[in-house]
């Protein structure tokens, strides 16, 4: 170790005055592992009446808006929704695509940023991965809710019926089933694997039921070299393998549409267009959640800092631009070479009775991010980011709404055009699934360490400052 490179910031003593501004960054504001552990455990066990009120209200809402309404839907029929000929797909599928889109964030943040060693990811990979899992859980409900006969949903599962008839493996819906199952399983595992050391940490510091749970989940983790090596190997397999799975999931979701003989859907660019949209909405949702976590969960102001929201904000800006590129690409090609049907459809989107949805989509996905996110100050202001990212997600919801019911209602036979308007049961179910997501997240925030302590600590170990000339610059060393 060369003498001039001294891990100044890594000493557990207060850094000198000249490095004070570096302490704004989590990696240069190290605390002893013991303290980090305590902070995280504190955040898990600390509950307030406000928390329990929220849990109670959300439970009631999930029971009524989601489960109650779903039961009513099952016992009366899909007719209580606003679907009709020709809008056979409505809010059900819109919300499905929305949640699947949201679920891309975890993988994106956790896997892609991990592969590319983006250091700012460290404190919030877990929060993002949880979003993936719960987003998928909320999303996977929708194909079931949507079914006309949900009580026989298992006929889609690959196993033969009494006459040795298997499902149709040429149907994009079966692809959907396979892809979402794969993604749900692998993202859950991917959430679980890096959790092992943290679970062991929690196991060592809790008693009672919590201890029992963590002991069972930690799989006897001790932190031996073999365990670390295995974990590193598994995580790297996952990080590389789950990225194509993630791309495949939203590509296949887009194929539900692109494979169809529907004007405006039959587009080769739908795959990447949907992926970019999904990542845009997912990363935005990560920001939303981080802002909320920072404000509500104990000790999170230490772990989640403006620098993280700033970094994610830059990503959102990039993906907003990419989304605009794909949107324009799709639009121009359809408009230029499209049939009359498609042209009529595009003008219907922009000038029909529901055109406000189309304009809101452009406003929220392009105009607002481009106007705000270039500014570092705004990117570091949590409430601004909260508003912007929520709007982006509303915009992305509108995008799916435009693509699904508004496109279906305007097809090749003008005699059979139809205007779709969602009815209360659909809206209730959609809100119910949002409540379910929030409820799961609230409960999880008190059950599993929201911050991967060992990763944060690992990062802090790896970050150093180096004196170059008359100033010090941050550096990061490769530890693995």
């Amino acid at each position, binding site marked *: 170790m060369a003498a001039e490179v001294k891990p100044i910031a890594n000493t557990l003593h207060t850094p000198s005055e000249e490095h004070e501004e570096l302490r704004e960054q989590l990696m240069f504001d190290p605390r002893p592992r013991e303290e980090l552990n305590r902070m995280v455990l504190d955040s898990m066990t600390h509950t307030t009446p406000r928390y329990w009120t929220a849990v109670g209200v959300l439970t009631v809402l999930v029971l009524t808006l989601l489960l109650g309404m779903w039961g009513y839907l099952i016992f009366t029929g899909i007719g209580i929704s606003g679907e009709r000929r020709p809008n056979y797909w409505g809010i059900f599928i819109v919300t499905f695509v929305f949640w699947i889109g949201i679920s891309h964030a975890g993988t994106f943040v956790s896997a892609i940023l991990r592969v590319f060693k983006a250091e700012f990811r460290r404190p919030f990979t877990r929060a993002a991965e949880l979003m993936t899992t719960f987003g998928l859980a909320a999303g996977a409900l929708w194909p079931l809710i949507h079914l006309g006969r949900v009580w026989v949903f298992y006929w889609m599962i690959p196993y033969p019926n009494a006459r040795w008839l298997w499902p149709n493996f040429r149907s994009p819906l079966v692809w959907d089933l396979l892809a979402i199952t794969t993604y749900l399983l692998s993202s859950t595992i991917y959430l679980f694997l890096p959790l092992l050391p943290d679970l062991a940490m929690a196991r060592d510091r809790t008693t009672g039921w919590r201890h029992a749970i963590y002991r069972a989940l930690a799989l006897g983790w001790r932190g031996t070299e073999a365990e670390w090596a295995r974990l590193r190997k598994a995580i790297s397999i996952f990080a590389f393998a789950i990225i194509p799975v993630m791309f495949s999931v939203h590509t296949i979701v887009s194929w539900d549409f692109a494979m169809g003989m529907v004007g405006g859907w039959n587009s080769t660019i739908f795959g990447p267009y949907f992926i970019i949209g999904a990542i845009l909405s997912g990363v935005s949702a990560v920001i939303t959640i981080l802002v909320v976590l920072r404000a509500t969960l104990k000790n999170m102001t230490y772990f989640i800092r403006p620098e993280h929201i700033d970094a994610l904000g830059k990503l959102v800006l990039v993906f907003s631009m990419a989304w605009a590129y794909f949107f324009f690409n799709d639009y121009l090609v359809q408009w230029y070479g499209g049939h009359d049907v498609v042209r009529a459809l595009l003008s219907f989107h922009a000038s*029909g009775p529901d055109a406000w949805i189309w304009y809101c989509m452009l406003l929220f996905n392009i105009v607002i991010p481009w106007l705000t996110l270039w500014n570092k100050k705004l990117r570091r202001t949590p409430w601004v980011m909260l508003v912007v990212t929520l709007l982006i997600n509303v915009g992305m919801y509108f995008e799916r709404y435009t693509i699904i019911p508004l496109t279906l209602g305007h097809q090749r*036979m*003008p*005699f*059979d055009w139809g205007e779709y308007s969602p009815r209360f049961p659909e809206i209730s179910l959609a809100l119910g699934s949002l409540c379910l997501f929030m409820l799961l997240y609230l409960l999880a925030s008190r059950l599993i360490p929201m911050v991967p302590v060992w990763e944060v600590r690992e990062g802090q170990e790896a970050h150093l400052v180096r004196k170059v000339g008359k100033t010090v610059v941050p550096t990061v060393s490769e530890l693995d």
Partner: protein
Amino acid sequence: MSDTISRRNFLKLTGLGAAGAALTGCGKAARYVTRRPYYDMPEYGALGESTYFATTCGECPAGCGLIMRTFEGRAIKAEGNPQHPVNMGKLCSRGLVGVQGLYNPDRIKGPGRRAQRGHDQVTALDWNAALDVVKQALGGGQKVAFFLGLSPDHIADLTAELAQAIGAPAPVRYGALGMFDGRAGLAEACRQVFGEARLPYFDLAGADLVISFGANFLETWLSPVAYTRGYSQFRRSAATGKRRGYFISLEARRSLTSGVADEWYPVAPGSEGLAALALGRLLAERGWALPLDASAVDVDAAAQAAGMTRAQLEHLADLASQAAHPLFIPGGNALAHAGGLAAARSILALNLAAGALGQPGGLYLSPAAADSSSLRDVQALVDRMRTGQVETLFIHGVNPVFELPPALGFTEALSNVKQVISFASFPDETALQSDYLLPDHTPLESWGYQRTLAGADRPVYSAQQPVVVPLYDTRSSADVLLSAGLLPYSDEVDFIQKKIAPLITQGGNVQATEIATFWARFLQSGGWWPVQAALAAPSAPAGLEAAAPQAAAAPEGQFHLVTYPTQMGDGRGANRPWLQETPNPSTTVVWNTWVEINPATADALGLKNDDIVKVKSSAGEVEAAVYRFPAIRPDTVAIPFGQGHTALGRWAEGRGANPALLLAPALNEAGDLAFGDTLVTLTPTGRRRPLAKLESTAGVYGEH
């Protein structure tokens, strides 16, 4: 039984149905013993086998032949009788939905006495007590009156004999469809032009040019299935050199019939006769020998009154004079005016001048004697009722409280009738105003015949027989009337057999040596008719009076009203859910009433689709939602007939509006209602009620 049927229950149910059929066949009414053989046919009891019965459709007077598919004692599906000369295996919506009348849950299920007219409360009656009431009532002699519908004919024949036997006035036969057909005017015009008061039959199949003056012959006019068949032949080009027929329609509103016309001229309502006369003059100039003197007609003025140009009339005249077999059809819309009879005469005269009487592609006189009454007869009945000259009124096959314009005063006059006996199968508006409900079987459960067939190219006795055992405690009205013992027939079947007995010796499609065999074959083949087409050729008349009907333009702020029947027929279709759900061909509206307004007029009035508008005439007012109809004269509005029931069961009641409320009781020379002369005003109400329709307004009209 619950409303939902599991597969197992369904099987059980069918088993029960079969058992029920056998039981009813031998027990319920002794008379049915005589037709046990039909129900005991071996295949009838065999599960999984269909049995087919030939019968006659009772949904309108056209009398199409049906082959009813039955399955284990239930009527399943109406199919056309391929041999029947009227429909040749084809059917319209109304006939197809007949089973929804048979199995309608709102039927009157047994005889009853109404505590108070207009109230729902009915005390069940024993049939014996009911028969006593009828017997007593028939003793009333000339104070008895019969009001019958246009079908079935055997009831009309029987009632006519009965009326004669007891010294009562002849039965009145009338119905809204007859009104829309302009039957009285047609028959009267035929009498004046050809000397016989019969309905004309136009052989579309052989024609190469058809000019229709407001005839909706593809919808309800006289015999729509027969005319549609003829139209189909007319439109075909064949390798033999037959060219596709050319069809021109003159009508204020582009109806379904006018819709398929090659040329449509939206003439002003009431100007059809004038246009015909002007066309006659132009044709006379082209060498046609017109039986009336049209030289006085000012072609330009006539064209202007009709809303046409002289060039257009010249064009029509050119086409007609070049055509080999032109036909000129006087429809109900042309006849329903003050000058309707003159119009009918002028139009028939064109046919006569074309020289195709009694030839293929020409005009025949159907054997259908004009035995339906005119509205004048109805008015006379109403007058007698009002002045207390009617003690007992028997009503069968017609719903006058709904079908007749209320302005005629029928409902008010009813209150002066001591007892009203309704044979209605359904709780319609008239049944609601009756004292006794003696429900007849529905047509599919009944015996009978229909012989007044305006759509056949030969005389026909179309046979009606039960295809299922009567579902409820209903009884044939013929039997009820015969039970008084005033006529020498033991029962309905005996009466029908005696009526058709003369046919045994006349040859035709069924032949036998004695009545039992003939009867069996008559029923099996669906009726009797000659093998060859045979209709009377009309005779050429002497000089006719060429009265030019006057057509008045609608005054400022008022509109002509066109009322037209839809698949609801005379309104009895309104309780058939599938007739309600079958889209109206022109507007695709289902389940309701609309007002057709030209978009330009609607814009001037500030009316959008689905705005509720109040339509007011001198006789009354109705409210209905606007349908901006692009093919109607701007000075005309149209309202379909058949909805607006205040009774008739769950699917009909409280749905839409009845345009009969708007019709003033103005009769023309022939005794037809001049409903085409009705003028209305429109007042937006500011309310909206979206019409249920199949089409997308945005897609078809570009309006959101």
